[in-house]
């Protein structure tokens, strides 16, 4: 893999991250991040969909007339999302239940459509595929960070395993309590804000004047 291809993969992780720089896909990143496990599954699902949607649309880019391209894109994306949804239901049913409508709503995730429109229609298939993987990974990375804090502070656990000992809780004679507001979407938005705050302060070139 040459350095240009590596850049397609790494650039969306930080410098042009879809969530914290392009501010896309905020809605689902607030909805599925109460726990770490669904967040990871959701991140992987979006990664698969963006990667293959980019690949397929890049292959079709010369044959699709300009005027009907959105319809074609939607058909491709919807097919991929249904595939992902069926696979999740078959292999990780409980997580699929937890994610409920949000797997289906990947169709409307701005990141998928955005990458297809902005990248896949003008680039070769392999580059588009890498770009899709990179953007999906950038989305997944932010999801995992948000879910890490929400699950740790909101339920005192990580991936379902208890991290904060039971004996620390007020009910058991300790002095700790879970931060219930972490389970609500507004707090997820504040965490996204904090990540953006931290990220911008490390990357002054991204700061708006």
């Amino acid at each position, binding site marked *: 893999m040459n350095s240009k291809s590596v850049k397609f993969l790494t650039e969306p992780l930080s410098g042009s991250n879809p969530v914290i720089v392009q501010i896309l896909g905020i809605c689902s990143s607030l909805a599925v991040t109460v726990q770490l496990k669904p967040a990871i599954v959701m991140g992987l699902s979006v990664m698969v969909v963006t990667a293959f949607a980019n690949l397929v649309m890049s292959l079709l880019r010369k044959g699709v007339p300009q005027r009907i391209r959105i319809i074609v894109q939607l058909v491709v994306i919807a097919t991929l999302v249904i595939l992902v949804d069926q696979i999740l239901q078959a292999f990780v049913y409980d997580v699929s239940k937890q994610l409920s409508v949000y797997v289906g709503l990947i169709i409307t995730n701005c990141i998928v459509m955005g990458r297809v429109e902005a990248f896949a229609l003008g680039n070769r298939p392999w580059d588009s595929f890498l770009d899709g993987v990179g953007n999906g990974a950038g989305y997944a990375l932010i999801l995992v960070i948000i879910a890490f804090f929400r699950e740790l502070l909101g339920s005192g656990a990580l991936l379902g395993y208890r991290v904060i000992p039971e004996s620390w809780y*007020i009910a058991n004679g300790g002095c700790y*309590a879970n931060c219930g507001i972490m389970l609500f979407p507004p707090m997820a938005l504040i965490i996204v804000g904090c990540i953006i705050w931290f990220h911008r302060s490390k990357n002054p070139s991204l700061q708006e004047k």
Partner: protein
Amino acid sequence: MDLRKIVDNLKPTFSKGGKLSFLASTFDAFETFLFVPNTTTAHGAHIRDCNDMKRTMIVVVLALVPAFLFGCYNTGLQVNLTGWTAFFYGLVRILPMLATSYIVGLAIEFAFAQSRGHEVNEGFLVSGFIIPLIMPISTPLWMVALGTAFAVVFGKEVFGGTGMNVFNPAILARAFVFFAYTPQMSGETVWFSTWKMMGAQDAVTGATALEQLSSNGAMQWSALDAFLGFIPGSFGETSTLCILIGGAILLIAGIASWKTMLSVFVGGIAMAYFLGDVCGMFSYPAYYHLLVGGFAFGAVFMATDPVTSAQTSTGKYIVGFMTGALAIFIRLCNPAYPEGMMLSILFMNALAPLVDYFVVQANINRRLARAKK
């Protein structure tokens, strides 16, 4: 030795080029805290008087003192102590909370001022005093600290510090703790301390006046008790009388707006009258609602916050009235929240700029119409 001299001797060390110049804004904060700055304006014609923001804020703190002192006494009273023992019991309970809120809040304020290189603003003098007064007395200190930190960082500093905040920081701290630790912040036992010291006993009753009103339609205390404040509740909010004394100090000093204050009470009594006497939702007198819970405290000390309240005269009437009316509306129509004052103040904080905008637009349109005639 003269304090002025000590400060002057220290000044070069903290000024530009001095050894500790990175702490300049911290030094400046303490200097202006001790002495009125004699800065003169270089450009334009601005009048400065001695009543700078530090003096303004300290008057608000003074206005809070009656409610604070009574809170000390009442906290002891609720665990069946009397006289001075009751007062000292309350004082011992509140001082750690007060210290926590000031230390955490001021540390964050100083750190932000330092890193941004501007003066330390003094708005927190008031917020830090109010925060313990509106928390249940049994709140663990780390929750107070967390609520304070959240309020100062997300309520104030992210918007640019004192004077830029959209929401009242003190009520935001209360709201954060309430929603983050709901099991610890609600229920029947929360208003009483479980500390057994100085011979304190468990209080006989569990529910606050407001909870009794909403569940039984009556309360065990008389309206006079509720007015004087001998009822359980958050530390500083129980005595309507002491709060009104504080309100009088604010009005005489010209700090709070009587328009906001009055219209909150009018809005509250109007909504209580409408829901009680017209709709028949409750049968006790409507004015009970102004005496119990945090209504009076919110009306006098929080709705009148000059930063987050409306700026125009008409806007003050509208926002004040809506705050009072909404508070009673939430109390009576939303079973999940027995106290609506916190939510209604936050909500009207968010709407105040919009109200101001329409008031200003209406004025412009009126004058345009007159000019065209």
